[in-house]
């Protein structure tokens, strides 16, 4: 065993090079986030004097205290984000699984049409204004949670991924066998097919939960009066946009813009909000990770 190389193994030198390359890449990914954490903990005076720095002149927790005490909306937004993400992920994954299962079954008569229906919308969108009009005036999607969930429910891209996944991992014989054993369509789907397709589902669920967690645009369009429903990302976007807008417009707004800008959140506050937003979703990754690795490798020829 010691003398024999393991199957698929590579030479120590190559492995070292790979490790260095991948290690550098990981550092590139991590450093910005560490930097954000450091800035969020820097004293405002330090930033004013020496700008952003890995070693600030003074540390301070003040901004965290301020954010948590003075922005009551943060907690409400946290709740909103979590609610939207959980409900949205569950519903969208379910719909995606149901839709793509039907497309995957060769005995489904209207496969071609429904395939086209989802594929077509992936390439040609309706445009912002028509979408907006349909959502607000026909579907009543404004100033409510539904407006933050429904527009993202169906993603054609995910449907195609899922359909391909079903094709490569669920043998048709399995469904046939279940039918012969007397299982109905729903029972086959939920009891036989879904358990086999778990890795695929987890991948779709992660993609969906990211989409829901990171979304601020729906809130910008549909939540205007009832701002208590704003998710966390929308809150951050709003603060950030305010600062940028005032800077950009200062020439045309004159003194009143500068007066407003002094009231805008400080640079550390913005970083604090980034940290508060990123931490929960970062926690979701390890949870989905093992399924994702499985999802990526499943179907490939195993060594």
């Amino acid at each position, binding site marked *: 065993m010691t003398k024999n190389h393991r199957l698929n193994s590579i030479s120590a030198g190559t492995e070292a090079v790979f490790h260095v390359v991948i290690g550098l890449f990981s550092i590139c990914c991590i450093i910005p986030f560490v930097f954000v954490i450091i800035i969020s903990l820097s004293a405002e005076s330090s930033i004013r004097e020496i700008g952003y720095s890995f070693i600030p002149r003074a540390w301070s927790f003040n901004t965290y205290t301020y954010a948590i005490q003075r922005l009551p909306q943060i907690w409400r937004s946290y709740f909103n984000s979590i609610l939207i993400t959980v409900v949205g992920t569950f519903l969208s994954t379910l719909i995606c699984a149901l839709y793509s299962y039907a497309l995957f079954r060769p005995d489904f008569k209207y496969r071609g049409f429904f395939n086209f229906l989802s594929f077509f919308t992936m390439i040609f969108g309706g445009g912002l204004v028509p979408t*907006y009009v349909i959502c607000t005036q026909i579907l009543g999607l404004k100033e409510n949670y539904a407006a933050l969930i429904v527009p993202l429910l169906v993603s054609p891209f995910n449907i195609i991924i899922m359909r391909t996944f079903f094709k490569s991992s669920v043998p048709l014989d399995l469904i046939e066998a279940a039918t012969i054993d007397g299982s109905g369509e729903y029972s086959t789907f939920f009891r036989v097919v879904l358990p086999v397709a778990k890795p695929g589902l987890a991948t779709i669920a992660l993609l969906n939960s990211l989409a829901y967690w990171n979304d601020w645009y729906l809130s910008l369009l549909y939540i205007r009066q009832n701002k208590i429903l704003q998710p966390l990302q929308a809150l951050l976007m709003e603060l950030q946009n305010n600062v940028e*807008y005032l800077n950009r417009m200062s*020439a045309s707004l004159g003194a009143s813009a500068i007066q407003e800008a002094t009231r805008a959140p400080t640079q550390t506050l913005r970083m604090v909000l980034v940290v508060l937003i990123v931490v929960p979703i970062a926690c979701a990754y390890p949870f989905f990770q093992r399924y994702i690795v499985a999802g990526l490798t499943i179907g490939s020829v195993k060594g």
Partner: protein
Amino acid sequence: MKKILALALALIMVFALVGTTAWAEEPVTLKIWFHGSNVTPDASQKVLDELNVYLQDKIGAKLEVIWGTWGDFDQSVVTALAGGDDVDMVFTCNWSADEYNRYARDGYWVKLDDMLPEYGADLLSVIPEGIWECAKTNGYDGIGIYAVPALKDTATQNCWDVNGTLLAELGYDVDAVCEAGLDYYSDEFEEMLQKAKDYKAAQGENDFYPLVVEPMVLERLVTVTSIVTGDLPGAAVLSFYYDKDHPSNDIGSEIVNKFATPEFEKYAKRTYELAQKGFISPSTQNVGTSNDYLNACQQSASYLFGTQSYAYGCEIDFSNARGIDVRMVPADAPYMDSTSGQGAMMAISAVSKNPEKALEFLNLLNTDPYVMTTLNYGLEGFTFEKNDDGTITFIQENRANYSPWRNGMGNIRILPPTADEGLSYWDDFSAYYNSAEALPYGSFIFDNSVVETEGAAIANVFAEYAFGLCSGATDPDTVLPDFLQKLEAAGMSDFVAAANSQMAEYLAG
């Protein structure tokens, strides 16, 4: 079972009947969309509940407010207007995305001229004729008023922003220097900059730059020129020269290519010279960092001279915010043009079902101190307390949750003064702005859509050269001729000629 069903049906009918009669008596709900607000839903609810009781009594209407913020106003209001949302009144102006003049042309606002005498009689008398004149634009239904202008800081005045504390430390008599005014081309001006730089260097601050400005504002301030409303957005290439002491005097000037004048050349040379001597930071000379650098320097009071488009009383705010003695030294007399008159307006949306009611409300908002104070400052005992002398003091804790943009609502001169502002604040405020003279071209607005192609080409050339020249980063001796040549090639002459012919037409009537 049938009995129960019959009973249920009967009950539904009764409720339906009650429902419809209640509906009939329901007051009109008006929806208004403000810009730049920082208002939490709870605070908004609390204020509106009380205000609506008053409004129902006065005009039989209820108000719903969309508190637009700075950042997402542009994007969401444009979508909502295009999507035909049922909003009755929308904030508009000549600098945001729902640009007043353009949307008036495209038919998004209700033309108010015929409605004003009936539903806005008080408004007509409260807002001065000059401001109404500024609000006139060539809309889809001919020239007229398409939004109610706000009676706020309605004049423009360019000032030098002087760090009085630093100037005193340098051994100058601050009052005397400010009284005499500053001359950009004088040796004394340069000497003060040099002294400040040496003084800071002696303290170990080697990266101190005494002249911290917005380059494009500095250019206007020094050359005594105004913005021409309707110039290219983000690429102002037109200038109008006016009389420094009496802006309304006709000195026979026309709209000109900003960069082709001897005054501009003189300005660019001087700025380049000052930059070479190390008085202007490289951060000021970079479009990307200029604004952030300016803000940072102002907050930490690390400058000697800056530029400021003046708003009445702003030196007090600035002094408090920066912890130094900020002085404003006027470079010219205040003047009024359509840019200042269209800074904040409330338009009635063309899809509004109750435009008359909406105008009645705007009439009340601009003339009834209770409505304006409640909407702008909140409720007594909640966001502010009344003092014995008639001023008010904010309850900071709640005010932080209810801070609309004060200037964006309308006639702010009927607000009570705060204790910091002092009792005579609004009188002085009005006196200052009423003294502003209108420029000779009145409220002319250039419609640059007729020379759109030239405009796009000019904007590209502008982006390449203008900022460097205005901030002293590039040497005008070598760069300016190239720049002017490229502007000509892009069609600058036609652009200027179009502006002048439109102005001549406007002035002819």
